[in-house]
């Protein structure tokens, strides 16, 4: 039997948890790994005819995210067997969500045609090109375009479901020179899922199309004259910059699907969320703590005669009675049915 036993109900634990953790700003950044090296082939070169077809190999768009959120509340805390507890739902609120889209316009070639063909009358080599001009490259000067898309207007549509399983542990800590036993949740697993935003986006598609429109205008502005843009579009075989940007971004019919893909598959926002919440819980403050030296009596100044029992007159002046403390040992925390039980002994 321990000297001291403290019991905390699930409800109280949840309330304390929600006092300690929410409100802290959690920042994270991430980007799509290795995307710049990959390529989307958007059309094929025909080998059926001798004439080459217009084609464009575009690199996969590069995505990055710059985000900030804070925990609002942990709901549905349940104590488990095996000294763990589950938070069924952690509410978060987005403070910033900037999706950066990088386009690496592929190098295009024109020219590179035949100057002189071997006369067809010549055996073996007849009809083949004997002399070629080297092609001229377009888009060789690091022509990356990086456009930030501020997703703040659609924060409310980006719903996340986050749950966590934590064990509970006691750590020795020091705060302002005093030693404590501190009770901390220790995350074992965090799960974060973006709810499929297809049905919840509401006006978001329009906002996203507006963002795409902004990219198009930026891209158009990079062309010195309309005729240059029209000549370039002729090379690419697309009618408008809009169609080109949608093509390069790999946006097809469904822009919500594209956004989900960018956030989930390219950036891995789920994992980033998991990490940031994992770290927030791991590095968070203690939910409960008790001093390592449990003070029974405070240090006290008394006049000797107050103590009594003197045969002669008590000496003048005060004397200091030292504080009486017991070292707290063997702290333990376990979950027992619907209660967290914290026990420790005093070392006499």
């Amino acid at each position, binding site marked *: 039997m321990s000297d001291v036993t403290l019991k905390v109900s699930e409800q109280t634990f949840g309330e304390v948890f929600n006092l300690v953790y929410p409100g802290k700003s959690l920042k994270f950044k991430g980007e799509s790994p290795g995307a710049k090296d990959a390529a989307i082939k*958007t*059309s094929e070169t025909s080998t059926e005819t001798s*004439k*080459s*077809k*217009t*084609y464009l190999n575009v690199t996969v768009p590069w995505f990055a995210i710059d985000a900030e959120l804070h925990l609002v509340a942990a709901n549905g805390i349940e104590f488990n067997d095996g000294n763990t507890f589950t938070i069924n739902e952690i509410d978060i609120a987005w403070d910033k969500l900037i999706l950066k889209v990088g386009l690496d*316009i592929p190098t295009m070639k*024109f*020219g590179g*045609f*035949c*100057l*002189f063909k071997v006369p067809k009358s010549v055996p073996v080599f007849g009809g083949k090109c*004997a*002399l070629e*001009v*080297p092609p*001229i490259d*377009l*888009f*060789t*000067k*690091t*022509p*990356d*375009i*990086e*456009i930030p898309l501020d997703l703040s*207007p659609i924060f409310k549509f980006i719903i996340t479901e986050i749950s966590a399983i934590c064990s509970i542990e006691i750590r020795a800590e020091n705060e302002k020179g005093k030693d404590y036993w501190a009770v901390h949740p220790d995350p074992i697993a965090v799960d974060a899922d973006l709810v499929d935003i297809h049905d919840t986006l509401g*006006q978001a598609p*329009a*906002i996203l*199309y*507006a963002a*795409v*429109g*902004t990219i*198009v*205008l*930026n891209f158009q*502005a*990079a062309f*010195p*004259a*309309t*005729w*240059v843009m*029209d*000549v370039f*579009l*002729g090379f*690419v*075989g*697309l*009618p*408008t910059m*809009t*169609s080109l940007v*949608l093509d390069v971004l790999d946006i097809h019919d469904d822009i919500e699907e594209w956004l989900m893909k960018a956030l989930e598959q390219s950036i891995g926002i789920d994992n980033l969320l998991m990490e940031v919440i994992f770290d927030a819980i791991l590095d968070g403050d203690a939910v409960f703590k008790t001093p390592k030296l449990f003070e029974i009596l405070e240090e006290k100044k008394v006049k000797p005669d107050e103590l009594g029992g003197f045969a002669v007159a008590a000496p003048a002046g005060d004397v200091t009675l030292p504080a009486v403390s017991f070292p707290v040992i063997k702290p333990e925390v376990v979950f027992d049915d619907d209660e967290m039980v914290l026990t420790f002994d005093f070392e006499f």
Partner: protein
Amino acid sequence: MRGQLFASQLYTQVDLDSGALVMKCFIAHLLREEGLYHGTVMLGERFVAGFVIEVNEIADETQVTVDLSELHFGARGTAPNEVVKRFAVKTGGYVVLHVGQGDGGYHVLLRNTDDDQSRPWNSQRLDDGDIFSAIPLRPGSYTLSNVSSERTVATRLVVTYPDPRENSRDRPRPTPVYATFKRRRFDPDAFTVDPGQGIVIATKDTARFTLTLDQPDDGSDEIREWHEQQRAELFRIIRGRGGRAVE
């Protein structure tokens, strides 16, 4: 947006001259005789780089491609007569001169050092067997001339304005237009090409070809109006954050 989408010379250098090569034009010169050829890259009156071509029967290649800008930039800081690069080509092969980057404006002097009697070749004065190629981009109406003598010979070349509404990925790229210059005449005597479509002129006479823009073409009123509509639609979508899909 950062960086530059493409070399500005591609759209600022509209007039082309075989005697002052820039990024959009090329010269091919036939090397009939075996020997060690010393080439000199000139920028106006200034020597900028030297190179050597070994022409013999044992070389593998029948074409050697020389980037004059690469030689120019590579020669910076070297002695005036220093050979920047050596090439080899089979006897009867061609040297193709071009400008890979920069403002260009080069011409080349080429001399067979194994043959004291031979006359140096000057790319400002093309000769029988030489080929000039150009890739005009700017839509408009041009004059294509041979200005090698006082009696300039000229013909018309039109670069059509591309209608973006008709663009298609399946549309094959146009092949170059091949022409000859012989007995002071161009054959054919008029050209119509798409932007980026090459013209290749094989000369049988002495020549220095120039391509001069007379009248730029900025597209029809209909195309300009279509562009305005596209732009207005974009602004409407961006401002209104709504409406139909962008495309």
